């Protein structure tokens, strides 16, 4: 049993590996198979709950799958135009989830748990909607660029607060990012709510707690589908670009090397001459940049106006945690995780799910599956036990015999 642990150097508290060390081990432990198994078990358990409450899990999952539009990828099946419409929705959500997933993944690589993706996402949304709804005289591309860059910077600054506190006084980033989430939520409700300083200037919104609407020119162009029916906007390519940036930064730059080194072992990194504080600060700021971008592309791509009700309802930042964990903090994995959860999110939405199964039940089923995925992936020991037990049984014993 004991041998299933990582071969970590025994510290004063015994061999308790850091989060990053566990993740690194987990990374090696089972390729793409373990996340697949994890997801499968989660879906299976979700199905059991569906069955236990008197619904048919097979037809439920079939209808959810139909709502995702993923069948569009298989030519010649079903209603093509409806599938295309649904797939566009799925990919819109996938775009945002890829970015919020990266926000969690990048911090993870530095040994930090950025649970504040939601707040950073909101801050990005606030800045994007304010910039996008003012300066109507700006040229379209410049306006879009300005809104996106400022939103990304806002996300970076918001996460940077947590990074700064971690770097200077050692405040735990989980606590500070949770607090920052809620400050962003209430701050947004105040800013854009009735009587708030950024409440919509349009007289028709006098009694709606909403922001001003994005001007037409600042909306992201749609490249697939009908803009009126929420086609897929070019934010999708921003997300893909960020995946590349993520991979290159982590694997091909000094900064990425330092971030990973700190993630593996901060003490060793410090001994090796790496500024751990700088890495913490930068890792959080870069994470926040991704989340801020997510907020910007959602706002400029399809929301166009912020209602305080959506501040209560949005969970894009939180799903990013599940996305990053399922994708094991790799670029490709994060994208695939984003597709899975984007599909699930879209397939269970009121708009896309046409079934005898109530979409309200289905959206909660999404949460359950998400929770199970996070739970099982968090318990890497289960996975490690299955995948590495045999190999690891012998490895750590050898040095002991030698000594």
């Amino acid at each position: 049993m004991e041998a299933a642990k990582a071969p970590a150097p025994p510290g004063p508290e015994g061999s308790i590996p850091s989060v990053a060390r566990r993740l690194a081990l987990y990374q090696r432990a089972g390729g793409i198979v373990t996340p697949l198994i994890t997801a499968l078990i989660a879906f299976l358990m979700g199905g059991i709950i569906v069955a236990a409450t008197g619904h048919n899990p097979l037809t439920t999952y079939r209808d959810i799958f139909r709502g995702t539009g993923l069948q569009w990828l298989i030519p010649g099946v079903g209603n093509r135009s409806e599938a295309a419409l649904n797939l566009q929705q799925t990919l819109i959500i996938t775009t945002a989830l890829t970015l919020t997933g990266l926000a969690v993944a990048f911090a993870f690589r530095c040994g930090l748990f950025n649970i504040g993706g939601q707040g950073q996402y909101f801050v990005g949304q606030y800045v994007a909607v304010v910039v996008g709804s003012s300066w109507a005289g700006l040229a379209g591309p410049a306006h879009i660029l300005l809104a996106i860059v400022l939103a990304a910077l806002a996300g970076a600054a918001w996460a940077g607060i947590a990074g700064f506190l971690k770097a200077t006084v050692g405040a735990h980033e989980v606590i500070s990012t949770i607090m920052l989430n809620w400050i962003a939520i209430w701050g947004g409700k105040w800013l854009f709510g009735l009587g708030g300083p950024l409440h919509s200037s349009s007289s028709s919104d006098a009694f709606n707690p909403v922001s001003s609407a994005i001007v037409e020119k600042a909306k992201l162009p749609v490249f697939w589908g009908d803009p009126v029916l929420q086609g897929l906007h070019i934010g999708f390519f921003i997300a893909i670009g960020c995946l590349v940036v993520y991979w290159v930064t982590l694997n091909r730059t000094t900064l990425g090397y330092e971030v990973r080194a700190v993630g593996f072992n901060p003490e060793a990194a410090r001994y090796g001459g790496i500024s751990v504080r700088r890495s913490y600060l930068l890792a959080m700021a870069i994470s926040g940049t991704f989340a801020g971008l997510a907020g910007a592309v959602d706002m400029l791509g399809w929301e166009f106006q912020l209602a305080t009700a959506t501040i209560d309802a949005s969970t894009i930042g939180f799903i990013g945690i599940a996305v990053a964990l399922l994708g094991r903090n790799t670029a490709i994995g994060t994208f695939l995780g984003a597709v899975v959860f984007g599909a699930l999110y879209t397939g269970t939405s009121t708009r896309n799910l046409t079934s005898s199964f109530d979409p309200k039940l289905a959206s909660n089923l999404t949460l359950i599956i998400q929770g199970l995925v996070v739970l099982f992936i968090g318990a890497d020991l289960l996975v490690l036990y299955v995948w590495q037990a045999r190999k690891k049984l012998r490895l750590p014993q050898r040095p002991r015999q030698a000594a």
Partner: protein
Amino acid sequence: MIEGTAPRMGERSQLLAAALTPRRIGQLGIVLGALAAWIAFPPVEARTVVWPIVVAVPALACGGFAISRGERRVGWGAIASGVIGGLLAYLATLSGTTHLESVFVWSALVATSFRYATPLVFAAMGGMFSERSGVVNIALEGMMLAGAFFGILGADKTGSWILGLVIAALAGGLFALVHAFFAIHLRADQIVGGTAINFLALGLTGYLFIQTYGDNGTPSSISAIPNIKLPGLQHVYFVGSAFGNLNLMIWLSFAVLILSYVLMFRTPAGLRIRSVGEHPRAADTVGISVYRVRYGAVVLSGMLAALGGAYLSIGFVHSFNQNMTEGRGFIALAALIFGRWRPFGAFGAALLFGFSSALAQRLQDYSQSAGTLFNALPYVLTLIAVAGVIGRSIPPAAIGRPYKKQ
């Protein structure tokens, strides 16, 4: 005569100097800062900002003195108190007296503060047990939500709020058991596990709520936790309307506070919990079962958080909505950290946060936006607390670290 008393004056001033340590002066500054705010509000209601300033400036001076003599924490506290008190007083003088008097009905504010604080107190006490034993519990939110739903479900199906509370505690304990199993036996990352529990609780309660009650919501005739009417107090000024008609759970929360304190700091069990949270290896060496203590503490934390949630649904609001806790579990966590993982500290923080919620609710009446912004206060204060501007909150040493038996 003057000559005769001179030596005595010297003695007295020595005595005075001994009593007026920099620390005491700093504390005096904190009180003065609060006083500066107080005189601008009903019933005193100074209508010019002069009087608050007259009081706030000495508060700042006391703070400066305390800092110069090395009492930094109290000193900065006094300065913060003076600045905030002065600002609040200034804001109060800006608004009309009718507004002030409609918002600041103190006895009603006290009663409402208790109502908002009680779920926080239960959850924060629960969180204290878990975190003091070394297991991070950011799943308080989920456990609270589970308590809120299963409490009302139990009260509805059995027709008894007592059984509702029992079922809520069992449900919360069950969620906590899952968290404990993953955190302790499987040595999963506790924050990841807690996040998962939060998602799971949100999904499961939402799913079962829709499945059971559909779009109609919970029925209005559910057995509710009764209020305790204190007959002798009803007509006593202030006390009557503040304490005369509080919910049973509010009184229970006071009991839970005292029991938690006694259990944690006056019994061997509490010592075990704390030792396991500070240095599990040492605790193991002297024969304490680290796993058993941690399981107990985490399950207890889930049950307490769930009771707080149940109060919310069957004691306070009398209905259930999806995600009805709305981050109260995280406020409880904030209260725990703000109160430095101590029972009375956490209780004080919960009261403060409850008061800010109560004030936010009353402010809605005349300025909705101000009321909304007020809701962010607990989180801002906690962020400041973890940042260590006014004395840092330092968590238990072994928090978040799984323990492996040797």
